[in-house]
């Protein structure tokens, strides 16, 4: 089976093509094909996973096939199957199948149904190809196809201006990061002459890369991660991307595309290990993103925006985990997060499907109307706030433990604060949506549970959200899937875990107390802390800052240049020259009038004849020019032959 691992990305790709061209005539407009292809990929992945578990398949294993030659360099394509890739394969194909099943119900009567599923399939195949890639080139291809697909999917409802703008923003912002990634790729090829992961690892092991070069490469690659995984300076696109249909948000912004950025760091970990400063940068970017996004989520009103910011925040955790040396912790959190965040997004989709609004303040008490959604959403929430025993608990504990263990105490505190905020905003969202009283009677009355195609994926996803941690958290399993050279994994004291758990609980309690007991108190608090509230509501004015820093200055610069052109260039140079010319001509006319009056006729005559002569040259007749040009060319060649060509 393993020699046919390339089928995993290939099947969804074929499905995408089939749906594109023949979707009209296929069952369920082609959606069935996409789902089946994805399920088969999932089956193959699970089969491989089983083989890994019972030890018949040794990891990592690599297969290489020649692709094309350019000069001396031979490019290959191939499959590299190692622990992280294995886990991600299962996660991506499984979640994607569920999301496609869910979409059948959710997109039910949307226009361009067929195209939607083609994009989903293509997107899945790109992500799977990226995960299986054994070289950076293939990785980059998958990465870019995903970028394009995310653009199509985010602006899927392009009739609305906001959706189109969001797609543009996501595309352009991630492009900024990709620029760095691309530069990094070029640097790698310049330094090592290969894109192959194993060969690069060997080079790194032999010390063929100087620490400085490694740092440059690592930071450039990290630019790609910042863009794709929505880390701090470039996180702005992800909340806007919520304009896309909810299954898209679940697929792109929970399980796959943003995970690609984290996966990139994991794949390039060798470079980062050579450059501790770069690792430090990674850790701090992750930490800042984690707390930063969590604070914004506290003030968001849109249920999808809350989840979006929480995604950014959790991605920050993963990046931070990788940055402080917790390789397995970061990837572990990536896996668990994929499951429960997909669940939460799909749950949110189910809610929106029922009440036709995103605003949490217009919901309330929905647990009575949407029981299945309620319970599954509850499980997802518990996993996200790392309630004891859920999958999120184990992975987040590991990250925080790694932060403490590697002596990043400040990051540890930030992490704990983030955990507190996470619990707080999730409790807030949960209470506003499901508990309390129904604030809009009409919506409440019309809300009803979603169809089976939507609820079944929720139930299926709820299982790993709760139990995945139990299966994977033992050090042996983690070592099997996320093997790493040991990096000062000092045993941290027990209280480290308890504090983290406690901060989560605190958030849970405070949030519950506030939003379940009295909403008036919440409003009072919002008034008291009005400036902060306003700041958070406006997302720290980041968009406005970017507008002011980058977009406006460009306009200003253009205006300034135009002013300069008009006032300086025109006034001083052009008019000045004009003045000088006038002066000169006055002098000349004086001389003409008074000194060379006698020669006027002669001058006029000669000027006229010179002009006529010059006029002869410009015949305005193309072939005449051509004749002269070819003659000159032949003359030049002959001259070269005569004077230079003597060997």
């Amino acid at each position, binding site marked *: 089976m393993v020699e046919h691992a390339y089928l995993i990305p290939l099947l969804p790709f074929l499905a995408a093509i089939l749906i594109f061209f023949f979707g009209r005539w296929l069952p369920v407009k082609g959606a069935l094909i996409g789902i089946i292809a994805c399920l088969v990929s999932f089956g193959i992945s699970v089969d491989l996973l089983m083989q890994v578990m019972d030890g018949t398949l040794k990891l990592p294993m690599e297969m290489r096939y020649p692709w094309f030659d350019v000069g001396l360099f031979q490019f290959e394509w191939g499959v590299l199957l190692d622990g992280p890739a294995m886990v991600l394969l299962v996660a991506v194909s499984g979640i994607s199948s569920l999301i496609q099943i869910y979409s059948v119900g959710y997109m039910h009567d949307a226009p361009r149904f067929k195209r939607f599923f083609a994009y989903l399939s293509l997107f899945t195949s790109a992500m799977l190809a990226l995960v299986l890639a054994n070289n950076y080139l293939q990785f980059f291809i998958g990465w870019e196809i995903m970028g394009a697909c995310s653009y199509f999917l985010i602006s899927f409802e392009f009739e609305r201006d906001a959706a189109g703008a969001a797609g543009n923003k996501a595309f352009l912002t991630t492009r900024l990061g990709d620029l760095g990634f691309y530069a990094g790729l070029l640097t790698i090829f310049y330094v090592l002459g290969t894109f192959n992961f194993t060969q690069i690892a060997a080079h790194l092991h032999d010390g063929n890369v100087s620490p400085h070069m490694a740092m440059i490469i690592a930071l450039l690659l990290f630019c790609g991660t910042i863009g794709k995984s929505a880390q701090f300076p470039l996180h702005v696109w992800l909340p806007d991307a919520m304009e896309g249909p909810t299954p898209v948000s679940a697929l792109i912004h929970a399980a796959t595309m943003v995970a690609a950025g984290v996966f990139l760091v994991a794949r390039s970990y060798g470079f980062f290990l050579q450059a501790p400063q770069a690792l430090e940068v990674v850790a701090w970017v992750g930490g800042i993103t984690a707390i930063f996004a969590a604070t914004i989520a506290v003030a968001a009103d849109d249920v999808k925006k809350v989840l979006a910011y929480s995604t950014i925040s959790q991605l920050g955790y993963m990046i931070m985990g990788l940055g402080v040396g917790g390789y397995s912790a970061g990837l572990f959190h990536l896996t668990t997060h994929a499951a429960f965040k997909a669940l939460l997004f799909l749950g949110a989709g189910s809610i929106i499907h029922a009440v036709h609004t995103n605003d949490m303040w217009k919901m309330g008490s929905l647990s009575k109307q949407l029981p299945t959604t309620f319970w599954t959403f509850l499980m997802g929430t518990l996993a996200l706030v790392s309630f004891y025993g859920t999958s999120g608990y184990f992975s987040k504990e590991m990250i925080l433990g790694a932060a403490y263990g590697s002596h990043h105490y400040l990051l540890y505190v930030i992490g704990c604060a983030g955990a507190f905020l996470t619990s707080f905003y999730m409790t807030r969202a949960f209470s506003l949506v499901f508990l309390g009283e129904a604030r809009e009677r009409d919506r409440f009355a019309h809300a009803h549970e979603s169809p089976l195609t939507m609820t079944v994926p929720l139930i299926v996803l709820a299982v790993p959200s709760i139990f995945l941690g139990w299966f994977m958290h033992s050090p042996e399993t983690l070592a099997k899937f996320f093997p790493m050279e040991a990096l000062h994994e000092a045993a941290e004291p027990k209280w480290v875990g308890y504090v983290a758990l406690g901060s989560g609980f605190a958030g849970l309690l405070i949030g519950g107390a506030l939003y379940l007991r009295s909403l008036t108190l919440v409003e009072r608090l919002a008034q008291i802390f009005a400036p902060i509230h306003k700041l958070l509501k406006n997302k720290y004015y980041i968009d406005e800052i970017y507008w002011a820093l980058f977009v406006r200055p460009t306009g200003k610069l253009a205006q300034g240049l135009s002013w300069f052109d008009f006032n300086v260039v025109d006034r001083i140079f052009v008019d000045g020259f004009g003045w000088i010319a006038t002066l000169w001509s006055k002098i000349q006319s004086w001389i003409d009038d008074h000194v060379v009056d006698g020669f006027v006729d002669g001058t006029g005559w000669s000027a006229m004849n010179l002009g006529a002569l010059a006029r002869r040259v*410009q015949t*305005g*007749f*193309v072939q005449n020019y051509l004749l002269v040009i*070819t003659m000159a060319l032949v003359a030049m060649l002959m001259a070269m032959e005569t004077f230079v060509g003597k060997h």
Partner: protein
Amino acid sequence: MTLSLHHFLMLSAILFGIGIYGVLSRRNILGILMSIELMFNAANINLIAFNHFLYPNQVWGQGFAIFVMTLAAAEAVVGLSLVLAIYRNIKSVYTEKLNILHG
């Protein structure tokens, strides 16, 4: 007498010369384009002849000839659509009518 490389080269030289004459002397833009095709073909004859007589075990010359043909096709397509555009605008395909740059 047996065929030697210079026979083919001389033929291509003549063809090239005829092409040059056509380019320089035809009034009609279409005539110029056709003469350019003649010159392309002269070059192609040279490429194939060198390949055949000097490097008979390789096909690089033929590969280049294929590229020349492809580029000739591209040139002809763009050139002819330009001719049509010109014809639409000035209702003529004679070069001396295209003299608005005349000094």
